């Protein structure tokens, strides 16, 4: 009877155990990487939210190395956090370089930043040359021949890079 509710209970109990045993450690580990206690607390919280989502697996197979596991998940979140922070800094710096940006409303800026953030996530997994070629084509509107000259590669390579970039972006979108 009631096995589904029971197993849910057990799943929560498993998460709770991991939380009690390792939350303090995870926070100080993150803080040592970030130096900022508030962000460390947020990321630790996010890490456990991910784990709550996996409570069913956790119930069936308890973690053998909980801290190694937490480190892997928290590490991914940390890298994302650093990416977003770098993006915001670059955005502020770019805005202050552009006289036109002064005329933008705060709302427009927020929307632009969020759009850029989404694009940035799409581009994050591309290798540096592929990303560069893709941006030259999409943002600067350069032709493949021109990009090929600037990058010192063949036009065929440029086309291959473009195809690779589109493919990765679409894979993330779909």
């Amino acid at each position, binding site marked *: 009877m009631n096995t589904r509710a029971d197993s849910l209970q057990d799943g929560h109990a498993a998460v709770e155990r991991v939380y009690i045993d390792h939350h303090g450690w995870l926070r100080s580990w993150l803080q*040592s990487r970030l130096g900022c206690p508030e962000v460390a607390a947020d990321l630790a919280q996010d890490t456990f939210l991910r784990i709550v989502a996996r409570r069913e697996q956790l119930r069936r197979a308890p973690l053998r190395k909980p801290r190694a596991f937490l480190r892997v998940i928290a590490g991914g979140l940390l890298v994302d956090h650093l990416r977003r922070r770098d993006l915001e800094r670059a955005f502020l710096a770019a805005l202050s370089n*552009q006289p036109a940006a002064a005329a933008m409303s705060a709302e427009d800026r927020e929307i632009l930043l969020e759009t850029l953030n989404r694009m940035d996530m799409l581009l994050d997994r591309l290798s540096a040359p592929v990303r560069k070629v893709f941006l030259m084509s999409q943002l600067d509107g350069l032709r*493949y021949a021109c990009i090929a000259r600037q990058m010192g590669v063949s036009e065929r390579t440029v086309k291959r890079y*473009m*195809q690779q970039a589109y493919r990765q972006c*679409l894979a993330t*979108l779909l």
Partner: protein
Amino acid sequence: MSRNAALKHEPGSDAVLEAAASWLALAQERSLDPREAAELEAWRRHSEAHEKAWQAALELQRAFKELPADISGEVLGRHRRDRRAVLKSLAALAFAAPAGYAALLHAPGWTADYRTATGERQDVTLPDGSRLALNTASVVRLEYSAEERRLVLVEGEILVSTAAGTQPEAREFVIQTRHGTVRALGTRFAVRDLGDGRTAVTVFEHAVAVQPVAGTQAHRVEAGQALAFDAQQVFRFDAGDQGDPPWTRGQLVSSNQRLGDFVAELARYRPGLLRCDPSVAELRLSGVFQLEDTDRVLDLLGETLPVRIERRTPFWVTVAAR
């Protein structure tokens, strides 16, 4: 339809993605000729999955077209941290050096924190009589044990003067940073986390031994010398003037320094964003500046150099051409 056939026609399946990407790459370069256009048309009509992938592709192109090119180019094309390298460095510290930095930060036992806010400085006398000065935005954790006196520099910059008390202190004095250790050999020295993946050490008296986390040997740094190191290796670093660093007196001293470098240094002492326009970054300046009032320092720049201080908000300041 069988399950396999259905999978093959998912919008996200490899074959569909590959075909959509190939069409996009072609259409981006030139207009399709009538035969190609008809082929694309047929491909799209072939299945719902094809059409859906093509719509997503058009969406992607539209999104990029609507972005302002200059700002977006600067932001999306910025220099990036290598994702894998960051993850690897986390793993290396966590697994290869369990007794190192990571372990120390949460080791049980007697620990204490010293912390300064941006623009703040603090002088501390440690339990053994050693003196510690913390520069702006710095965090230090104290790990004294029976075997050694260990300070963990979590971030920022410190000046250490080890105690030369009446009784000889047998315990070693060690500074731990995220990149390695600096072992004092009876001495006075400054340690700074440069924030770019390296630590810098400047020695004023006697000597220290520097050991990167993953390095195989220690490097001795004598009085009047400096070096920087990351987790693997050491780098040359300019020792600058002799005598205590000016920040311990609340000063910023520059001698024929690039304005760009000066502004970057000044930014450490101010909350918010302070930047220097590249068009004036090569100007040179010399002087002694008081850090307690960084706004006054900025005004001085405006009075003595052909630059203008743009204050969009108190937290967003640009040094620009006049």
